């Protein structure tokens, strides 16, 4: 044995050209790639500089300070055409994107889970209806669905002078949904504080109840206490304030004028169309994710929990869903990201999201394509990375702990 080894190690490898050394070849190919890519970038940059100079377009991010000079139909912060700059327009667009995405994600999750579970129902009719919903929504472009909701469904709403009165200060017309606007008095802070105390109290109580159940087996009415703390406490605070005469919240009712409604709060039809379109479309994809996740939980789990005496609802809630979540979370994350990215289709129906405000109006007004595109894409990339990070943390928490 040892003799063979020595001969092998002593035999010098045959002399080969260094050109055949895989490492050197690797350096060569990578050097070539770096050269080609840098050359392309260099060409693009010099051309861009030349073209921008010829077109007399400024460069740099100074334009963010310039006065915007246009109005935006939905603003969550103070914004006016004369008094605000492009930087504020960017913030308005970003907030609008975030608002519609957040609300869309909230509703799409509920709808998606409901439909995903319905697709596995033992009821034939429910199963088939859920299947038709998923197939129909998934196979038609979102843009077409948005146009349908916006133009075909919300378009025929009546003119403001013929608004549909829905009672309690709610009006519906072609300019959107009008509702009472809450006006906060100076001591309105009591209510959010009560809500916060309620939430903290709930968390503490849940921990305590769980510890009690694990050590003694006694169960406490967690649901009722949660309801009482989270909903009851703010309501009580409100009532107390109202009774002592300091009504914390009053409502400004929209009033019917000759041509338009005055006052109140307005929800744009563009917002509603985008929200409904994004929610129903993404829910179809989430339903498939949920269905796959539930199918990935082995049937023995369901049977075992049934033999322990759990009801079907409890089986789903306590046994199947927690295990399915491990399979569901990664694709669910990418559906959330898709919804956020798809919210950029707002530009097609005129909802003032980031792309419509910044890549549309601001880009057209300033002509500074490179800066605007870089900022916008940077925002979406950041949202993507942050969401993936948060979801990865959650994913690590629910992942199987091997013993």
């Amino acid at each position, binding site marked *: 044995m040892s003799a063979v080894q020595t001969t092998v190690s002593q035999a010098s490898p045959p002399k080969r050209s260094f050109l055949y050394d895989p490492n050197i070849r690797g350096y060569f190919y990578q050097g070539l*790639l770096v050269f080609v890519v840098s050359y392309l970038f260099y060409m693009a940059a010099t051309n861009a500089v030349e*073209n921008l100079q010829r077109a007399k377009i400024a460069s740099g991010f100074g334009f963010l300070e310039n006065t915007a000079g246009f109005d935006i139909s939905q603003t969550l912060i103070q914004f006016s055409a004369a008094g605000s700059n492009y930087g504020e327009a960017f913030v308005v667009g970003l907030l609008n994107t975030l608002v519609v995405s957040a609300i869309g994600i909230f509703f799409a999750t509920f709808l998606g889970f409901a439909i995903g579970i319905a697709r596995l129902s033992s009821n034939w009719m429910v199963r088939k209806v859920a299947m038709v919903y998923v197939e129909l929504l998934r196979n038609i472009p979102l843009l077409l669905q948005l146009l349908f909701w916006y133009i075909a469904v919300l378009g025929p709403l009546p003119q403001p002078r013929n608004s549909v009165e829905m009672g309690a200060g709610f009006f519906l017309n072609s300019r959107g949904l009008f509702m009472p606007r809450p006006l906060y008095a100076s001591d309105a802070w009591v209510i959010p504080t009560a809500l916060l105390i309620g939430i903290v109290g709930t968390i503490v109580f849940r921990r305590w109840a769980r510890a009690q159940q694990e050590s003694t087996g006694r169960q406490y009415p967690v649901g009722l206490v949660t309801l009482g703390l989270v909903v009851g406490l703010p309501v009580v605070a409100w009532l107390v304030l109202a009774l002592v005469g300091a009504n914390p919240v009053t409502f400004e009712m929209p009033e019917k004028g000759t041509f338009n409604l005055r006052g109140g709060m307005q929800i744009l039809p563009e917002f509603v169309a985008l929200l409904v379109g994004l929610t129903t479309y993404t829910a179809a994809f989430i339903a498939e994710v949920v269905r796959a996740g539930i199918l990935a939980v082995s049937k023995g789990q369901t049977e075992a929990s049934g033999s322990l005496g759990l009801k079907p609802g409890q089986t789903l809630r306590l046994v199947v869903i927690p295990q399915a979540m491990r399979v569901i979370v990664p694709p669910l994350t990418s559906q959330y990201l898709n919804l956020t990215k798809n919210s950029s289709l707002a530009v097609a129906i005129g909802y003032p999201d980031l792309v419509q405000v910044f890549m549309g109006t601001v*880009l057209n007004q300033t002509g500074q394509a490179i800066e605007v*595109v870089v900022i916008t894409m940077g925002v979406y990339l950041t949202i993507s*990375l942050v969401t993936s990070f948060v979801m990865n943390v959650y994913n690590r928490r629910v992942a199987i702990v091997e013993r």
Partner: protein
Amino acid sequence: MSAAVDMSRFVRSEKVEALPPPNLARGPIAWVRENLFSGPFNTILTLAVLYLLYVIIPPIVDFLFINAVWTGSDRDACRAETAGHPVGACWAFVIDKINYFVYGSYPGAERWRVDGFFILLAVGVAWLLWLRAPRRDLGAVYFFWLFPVLSYILLTGGNMDLGGRFWLGFLAVGLLFVAVMGLAAYLLKASIRSAVIIGAVILAVIGLTLGLVDIDWGLDHVPTSLWGGILVTLLVATVGIVFSLPFGVLLALGRRSRLPIVRMGSVIFIEFVRGVPLITVLIMANTMLPLFLPGDMTVDRLARPLIGVAFFASAYMAEVVRGGLQAMPKGQYEGAMSLGLNYPQMMIFIILPQALRIVIPGIVNTFIGLFKDTSLVAIVGIFDLIKTIEASRIDPEWAAPTISYTGYAFAALFYFIFCWGMSRYSLGVERRLAAGQNR
């Protein structure tokens, strides 16, 4: 026992027919009981769904068929006051505008060329998708080389008129390229002959391609501003798939490469493109491409979104292909290497044929997404199907209350048929591939 037979005793000579099972355990009634009314909760659910269907289905059927108008030449046919009955879908509008929806403003006399493009596309798709088609290797050559070239000639008219100086330059650069190939082979002590042959073949393919689009085929030039409708929708989707597959494979190989710079570059490209919405990529292609090119060069208005879509689809395709590469057992790589194959040979002959085969469903799903996403080019002003419908539904000639609904219903039907068909195909392939795995 007496031998005499007691004739009064009755012996049944044939079997009695079994009684049918009780009605409530088999048959339609039992099925209904079990699947629809198995408990109070299920009964309520069934009734609720039935009511929902009762609310939704009849108006849709009324709209699409019963109250629909099938014939007519202008808005009068589709207005309730002139037609004399409630009007649903105005299919007469779609029939009247169908040429616009299919060809856009493509000149009437030249529309046979668009039909030719549709036929070429159908042949290529069928060749590639039918798993047992003969000579699928030739099918790939057809779909990724011959078909794009022929389509380009058919749709634009070819006749690029490159001129003699271009061809002289091309010849010089080409000969230089072959010489460099030969020199490299000499330095590497490899076969000079095969290096020169490979170089010459590459040169010949590029030259043939350019020659074909250079020749005057006697076709009139049709500017891309006239193209529209389903033609553009299918064109964008086709360009997406034709470019994204090769680029996607390259990116996937790059992402799994052991060379750090190649790997980093692929990862950055893929993650960047997948992290931004397609519409921002399209707007970027629309506004920034002209900036990056020398001042006297312009990019065709239609080509800009095509480039954007090609890049976008490549990144998604790369992730699908990477899945296939990762699913290959390590033994396949080691087997290939132990046979003495080098990297390109190993990939082309051993790994990719198997890896691509198992990700066919994923590729088709990506393509469904791409097909739906083509509708976004309407936002940057390209006349695809949706844009032609948007332009037609406000035509005063056809001003009627249900025109918008009809247009959207037509577009939805078109997209649904294509996407649903592709998803069925992908399911079928999945099942076939799964059957091969069951031992």
